[in-house]
């Protein structure tokens, strides 16, 4: 069961095996150190903060005392359940939309783009050359009330509010746009890996092109779908820029709540509690999702 080794004496091989056993752990050290300093420690302090007591209830400016106030969680959830639910709703919509847009795009780039492949891939990541904030501001202009897009769609009678900006549509559109590359690239990479001979084999075995796509291409691209949806859904659920710049006061997401609790109201325990709930929820959603998708078998 020993893997094939280049030739060498038995002793030499044993030494190599011994060294090889410890090598992975040594290689883990920098990563573990990084995670400890920049993830575990802040996480711990966040947990601590979320359980603090206010010095003067109702007046966060008076400061907080360490404690074990679990009620921070229930009161935060009660106050912001709406934003919390909305975050997942918007993130889910944006993820689905991104998948619908990115799949054909990635498919085209992987199978049909010929010598334009690299050029198209550069175009996919081109938005990253400008900052996230600037691009989202640009969407304010694009979706502005007197803008061409809004006027055109409104003329078709498709807008109940006669506007896009400051509506959920704008927020979901912004989220979809901003995270589209995170959906496209993993999809592309898993589609590109598919051996076209498998698709030919499906045709040879009486699968019409669409059936071949459904039975061979789609299952083999599932790892990309899972990676892409996670990379879109997770940051989208916690995002606050899109809701802030493109949404109206009634479109606030949990990210906006955390943002304003931390920065403006400075109610740290509530903000920390909300952050924790968000984190745990995402973790649970992702775990269930990955289990259901059964990607281990595909990889």
């Amino acid at each position, binding site marked *: 069961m020993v893997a094939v080794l280049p030739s060498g004496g038995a002793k030499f091989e044993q030494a190599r095996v011994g060294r090889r056993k410890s090598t992975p752990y040594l290689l883990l050290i920098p990563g573990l150190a990084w995670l400890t300093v920049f993830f575990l420690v802040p996480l711990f302090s966040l947990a601590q903060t979320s359980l603090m007591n206010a010095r003067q209830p109702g007046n966060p400016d008076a400061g907080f005392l360490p404690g074990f106030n679990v009620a921070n969680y229930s009161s935060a959830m009660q106050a912001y359940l709406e934003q919390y639910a909305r975050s997942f709703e918007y993130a889910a919509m944006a993820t689905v939309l991104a998948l619908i847009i990115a799949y054909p795009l990635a498919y085209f780039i992987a199978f049909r783009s010929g010598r334009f492949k690299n050029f198209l891939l550069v175009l996919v990541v081109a938005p990253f050359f400008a900052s996230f904030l600037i691009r989202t501001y640009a969407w304010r202009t694009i979706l502005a009330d007197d803008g061409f897009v809004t006027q055109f769609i409104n003329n078709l009678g498709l807008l109940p509010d006669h506007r896009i900006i400051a509506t959920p549509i704008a927020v979901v559109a912004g989220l979809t746009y901003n995270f589209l590359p995170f959906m496209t690239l993993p999809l592309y990479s898993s589609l590109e890996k598919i051996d076209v001979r498998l698709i030919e*084999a499906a045709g*040879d075995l009486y*699968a*019409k092109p669409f059936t071949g796509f459904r039975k*061979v291409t789609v*299952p083999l691209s599932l790892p990309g779908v899972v990676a892409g949806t996670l990379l879109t859904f997770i940051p989208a659920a916690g995002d606050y820029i899109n809701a802030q710049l493109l949404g109206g006061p009634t479109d606030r997401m949990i990210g906006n709540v955390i943002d304003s609790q931390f920065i403006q109201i400075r109610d740290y325990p509530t903000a920390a509690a909300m952050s924790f709930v968000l984190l745990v929820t995402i973790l649970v959603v992702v775990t269930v999702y990955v289990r259901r998708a059964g990607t281990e078998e595909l990889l």
Partner: protein
Amino acid sequence: MAEQARIEDLHLVHVTKSFGTFTAVDDLSLTVPGGGFFALLGPSGCGKTTTLRMVAGLETPSEGQILLGDRDITTRRPYERSINTVFQSYALFPHLDIFENVAFGLRRQGVKGAEVEQRVNAVLELVELTALARRKPAQLSGGQQQRVAVARALVNRPDVLLLDEPLGALDLKLRRQMQIELKRIQSEVGTTFIHVTHDQEEAMTMADTIAVMNAGLIEQMGAPAEMYDLPRTAFVANFLGQSNLVHGQITGRDGADLLVRVPGGEVRLPANRAADDSGGLIIGVRPEKMRIAYKDEQNVNRVRGEVLDVSFTGVATQYTVETPWDPDRPVTVFELNDEGAPEVKAGDNVELVWEYGFTFGLDGDDDLDAGNELAAEAAEVAEAADAEDE
């Protein structure tokens, strides 16, 4: 037998395939007898895969027609043809287990539950893989994957099964074993098999009919023994086994025999084994048909020469002999190591003899080396593949 007669022949009629300005298959006409084991043999790049892909429908001919029986299938989509392929790389679906891989074609054709089960199990039994039905392709050895690929195609009971160098990736021992296995499966199911290979030995052991292909054209087609006995072109003479060839001039006729002058002597051969009856002719004889004369013999062709090299190969000994035919092209002789073998060493002068009837005569305009380097190259490739597998 009656059942075999019903299986239709496959006809390729003036089929041409060009990629841009390059012609991969050139005006190819071919009839594959129904129910037989047909081998398409040729050097690398001669257009074998392209031909198979056109039959499978994965490539459309630039010109010409493909007929199954009397139905024109030239423009049918792959999923509309009752033809299945065993791909060179197997192309098993990695996300499906063996059972589902084999069931794939049946399900697409709308075969239902119990029948799928029964047919898949039957074919898995045929290829002796019943125990592995629930494994994924990645968990199988190369030989097992190869058998799954055969099962996946066969389960559909196609009119024609195409095999594109299905044994190329296997080591020599497994390859021999699979050759026998495939042959057994073919005779059990009676489907027409078209087997592409560049291994002439494989083609000869397995096939009922061989077509030798070269540079997009069919050089010759026939039963293995027939083609070996009477090659029609220098390419076939060199590619299918080995031959000693020499240019000659026809000088006359004696009854049913032709007399041909070659450097250093005269050779006699039956006129019906010669491509021509006047002018130039290439005379050929297989190395094992020649022997070193140690007693006076009658009614044989002869050539004198000096032994350059003797190499012992176990069953036989190979002699390399320089003759007046062409000093740069020594003659090769295989002698079985039985009692009759004479004691000969390098430097000896010997006389080589062979029966008139073993001589063949090829078109005088052929290139003596056609197929020669290619045969060497193909052997090298096969050997390299074997070495890699070990």
